[in-house]
Structure formats: C-alpha cells, structure tokens
C-alpha cells in the first residue's frame, strides 16, 4: 500500500529525514518510535502533505500513485488520514459540518453518492460509540475548548467517520491519562481491518500495550535504524534508546 524509498526531507533548509525506506501493507499496524527530534513528526507531516516540508530526494508510492504529487485534500480523498499531534481549534466551524463536507468530498472522489443529513447522522451516532464521544462535543466547533484528551479522542472519532485506508497517528497517546488512553486505543483496535494500514508514531511504549503492532521501527537522526516486532518496543522501554543508537553506530 505504502512504499517509501530513500526519502529525504528538510524544513527551513535543515535536513530532518535522511533516507527513509519503509514498506507497509494493507492490514498491518506499524509503530514508529524514536527519541525527540529524530524526525517522527516530520515523516507523518510529509506523508499528509503539510506545507513547509521540502522533499529533496526519494519517492513515496501509495497504491500506484506518486503520493508527493498530491495536495493534502487529494491525499484525504485517496484514503490517507493524519491524526494530528496537536489538533487545531477552529472556532465557528462545526465538527459535524466538517465531517459531512469531508466525507462527502471523499465519497464524490470515489464516485459514490453524497450522503444526506439523515444517513450522515446515523453514521455519526454509530461512530461516536466507538470512542465514547459525547454528542455535545460532536456538535461544538472543531476542538474549540476541548481538553487535550478530548482533542485526541476527536481525532480518532474523525478517523472512524472518514474510514481511511492509511491512518497515521502522530503521538496520539501524548497528553492522555491512562483511562483516556484505553478508550482511544480501544477505538483504534476496532478500526483495525484487513483493508486498512495504521502507522503509529510514538515516543513511549505504553500505547503498544493496548494496540499490538505487527512491526516496530526505530527512527533516529532521520533514518530507520532498527526494525523488529513488538518485543523491540518492550526492550526500548526497559533500556531506553541509547543502546540502539550505539549499536547502529558500530
């Protein structure tokens, strides 16, 4: 589904990603871990098409398309979803309106008919249960006045509604207490499917206690320096990142 080849990217002329190779298939869950400043968020932003990131080398193939040529909305239409590390507050723009406009744009792109208000609301109600989302939150302006946990929960709720093929969760666990983490992780688990790939970007192992990954990658200084299964995450939790960095330097 997603094939990243020798990806180099820089921000403000400073190279952050220095040659990433990664392949992810439908149905897989990959965790990308790494110390602060290793380039984790840069990778997720480049994949989602955030402005301000220059790809200087390499390629990203997504279902036979050159991903880097697509605008952010075209990526959304093709089934890519980014759960933001810092979800943006948008006063005056209703959550329900945003999701309806987004979902209908995606459906239109797929050649499907647009949903009317009633069909749409029944989808909303069904997905709200998935992440235990309160209706009053759903009806408010996007993320306005939401707590940190509510914002993260809203991201997963949006993911549930938009049903992406490739979901990138950027530090979705940060800022969550243990109860909220369980709810969010529970929601993500329910969204696992054979057709969907999920990339989880995280600093800590604890999210992986609840969402079991198929593969774990360690990102350091803009490169993937080690790949393993979930036991790698446990080892990182115990021993920190230093040993990986030293091992790879040898």
């Amino acid at each position, binding site marked *: 589904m997603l094939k990243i080849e020798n990806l180099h990217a820089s921000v403000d002329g400073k190279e952050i990603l220095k040659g990433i190779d990664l392949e992810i298939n439908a149905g897989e869950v990959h965790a990308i871990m790494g110390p602060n400043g290793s380039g984790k968020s840069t990778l997720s932003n480049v994949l*989602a*098409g*955030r*402005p301000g990131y220059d790809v200087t080398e390499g390629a990203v193939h997504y279902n036979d398309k050159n991903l880097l040529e697509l*605008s*952010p*909305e075209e*990526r*959304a*239409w093709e089934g890519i*979803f*980014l759960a*933001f590390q810092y*979800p*943006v507050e*948008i*006063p*005056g*723009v*209703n959550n329900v*309106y*945003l*999701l*309806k*406009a*987004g*979902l209908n*744009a*995606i459906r239109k792109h797929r050649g499907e008919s647009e949903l009317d208000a009633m069909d749409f609301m029944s989808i909303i109600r069904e997905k709200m249960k998935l992440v235990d989302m309160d209706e009053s939150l759903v009806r408010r*302006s*996007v993320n306005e006045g939401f707590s940190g946990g509510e914002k993260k929960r809203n991201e997963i709720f*949006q993911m549930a509604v*938009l049903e992406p093929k490739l979901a990138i969760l950027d530090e979705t666990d940060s800022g969550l207490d243990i109860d909220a983490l369980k709810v969010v992780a529970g929601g993500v688990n329910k969204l696992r499917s054979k057709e969907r790939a999920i990339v989880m970007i995280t600093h800590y192992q604890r999210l992986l206690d609840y969402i079991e990954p198929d593969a774990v990658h360690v990102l350091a200084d803009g490169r993937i320096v080690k790949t393993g299964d979930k036991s790698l995450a446990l080892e990182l939790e115990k021993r920190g990142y230093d040993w990986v960095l030293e091992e790879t330097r040898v």
Partner: protein
Amino acid sequence: MTQPIKMLRDAAWQVYEQTGLPTTRNEDWKYTDLSRLTAVLGETWWTPSHAADLDKETVEEQSIPELDAYRLIFINGRFQEDMPNLPEGVSVVPLSTLLVSDADKAAKALEMDEKTPLFNGAIAVNTAMASDGACICIADGVKLDKPLYLLHVATSGGASHIRHGIWMGRGATAHVIEHYVGNSTDAGLTHNVTLVHLDEAATLYHDRLQLEAEKQFHLGRVDVKQLRNSRFVSHSLALGAALSRVDIAVSLSGVNASCVLNGLYLIGGRQHADHHTRIDHASPDCTSQETYKGVLSGRAHAVFNGKVVVHEGADGTDAKQSNGNLLLSDHAEVDTKPELEIYADEVKCAHGATVGQLDLEQLFYLQSRGLDKTSAKNVLTFAFADDALTQMISAPVRRYLERAALKRLPQGDELQEMV
C-alpha cells in the same frame, strides 16, 4: 411647513453652509474622502431623489425572507402608505405626517446637537432635508412581540434623507431592523440619522443592515441616549455600497446601563466602508462590549475607529472592545484604531485590534479532512465573519446575512449548508 420647523431647518442649513462636509483634514475623516461623493453626485449632492412606487414582487424580493415582522417600507426615502396594525402601546408615525400634524414631535425627531461626538455637516443636512422616517414610541413596560422592520429601497439616483426616532419607555423591549437595499444602477445617496432614547430598564435590539446597490453612497448615524438599567444591542453590517460611513454614538448616562455594539464589514472590489463608534461611559457601573469584524478582498478599504471615553466618576465601568480584520488580498487595506480615554479610577477596560490572513494550520487541518482548498478558505472566512453575528436575536435576519455573506465569497454557494 410650520414656522418652528422652518426655523429649525434654516438653522441647520446654515450650520451646513458654515461647516460644509468633513474633509480628510478632519482626524475623524482622515481615511474617508467625501469629495468622492461630490465628484460623483455633484455639489448639490443633497438633492432629493424622485418619489417612486415599487411593485409588490420587487418589495418581496428585497425583503428579508421568512421574517415575521411589522414592516414599514421606504422607497427613495419616502414612507409607503401601508402602516401595519400595531399592538397597543406601540405608536409609529411617519415623520412626513408629523411635519404636518405635530410640529413639536417632529422637532423632537429632528433634534440636533452640535456638541454630540462625531457631529459633522452632513448631519445638519439631514436635519434640514429629512423628509420622512419612522417615529417610534413604545410605551412603558410594553414588550413588542415582533420586530419592527424598516425596509429602505433606493430605486434611482439622488439623495434620500431619512430620519428615524425611537423612544422606548420604562422597561419596554423592542427589536428594530433598519435594512438598506437598492436596485438602482445610478449612483445615489442614502443618508440616515436615527435617534434612540432608552428610558430606565428599556431594552432595544437594533440591527442596521447596509446591503446597498454597488454604486450607492451611504451615510448613517445612530445616536443613542441610555438611562439607568437600559440595554442597547446593536449589529451594524456593511456589505454593499461603493462608499459607506456609519457612526454610532452611545451615551451611557444612567447607572448600570449596558450596550453591545457588534459589526461586520465584508467588502471587495473597490468598496470603502468606514465604521466609527463612540461610547461615553458617563455613569457608574455601566458595561460596554464591542466586537467588529472585517473581511476584505480585492482593493477594498475599511476603516474602524472605536472610541471609549470613561468620564470622571464612572467607577465600576467595564468596557471591552475588539476589532479583527481578515485581508484576503494583498491590495486590500484597513485602518483600525481603538481608542480609550479614562478619567475614572476603578475601571476594567480592554481593547485590541488585529489584521491578518487565514491561519495556515487551520487551512491544512480542513484540507487533510478532505475539503478542497477553496472550500477550506471559504469555511474559515465565513466562520471568522459569522463570529460577529452570534448575538443576533432574530434567526431569519442572521440567516439572511449569512447567505448574503456566502454569496460574496468565491464559490460560496457551495457552502450554503453551513448556515
């Protein structure tokens, strides 16, 4: 014309002849050049437009849809003989009638105080020339069940001089909508002064909606005197006209009076919109809240000046003011100036102004959820503007304005679902 009215008119005309129209040398008119008015309409810019009739269909077309209200129609500044049946305690008499039947009351409606803030020669012309308007009296304790809707349609060039007066008795409540539209392809002038008196504990919701035709000039002034515990909630909108200037002056002259002044200007092309407001906190424990928002595209030019004066002894004043502007084009220009003068000790005052572009983080967020860039920009622009309308009391009025605002955005029609 009765003798007292003639004297009043002559005196006002003399004031105009002495002072003339304000020029850009006047600090309050620095950015709004009325020589454009004389250049287009001539030195006799004040010449009244012709009387005209409008067919029912056109009137309905120009009206706010779905609005259940007591409607009064003014065409080229003249009241159309079609007075709605008003409930007890509510009196509305056209100024044209009062001029003939009750000189004292007419003189009250034409009152002019050269010492009021933001006074200028144009007001004197309005006093000298005003031929019609609505003189509205709401008796003590009366709560008007439906809005009074003053629809003004300009159908041809020339000037319409309109004078409204709203007198609210103790504890009375009303909603008055002044709506200015037109279908004239010639340049003309709408020139309105509205005097508002709020007795103790009276509440007036006042909407002033300027959606004139594109060549029209528009000069407006609202002069508000508030007594104890009264409340004035104003929404002033500028979406139309080539050049518009609206001054709102509120005097909080009784303990615990409060006012809300909200506004929105949404202009493009070469439109010019100027909003000056002045709030005088002349009594203790009064509250004023002001939020004006502006969205400018093309080569539009907007001016906002909000002055709050807290007078000596007006302790316990709470005054908040903000003006936010969104520039959608590199050629649009805004001159904003919040002003605060405080002569009392115990006051809470806050003011601020911003001028900016759309937030790129918000834009990316919307795009990442599937909205194309144009829609995402429209959504954010609309949300920014709509923030000025959240305190409007009438849903049909707000919906009408939201639809009008969307029409002015590129591909805004696709967003009609937002409202």
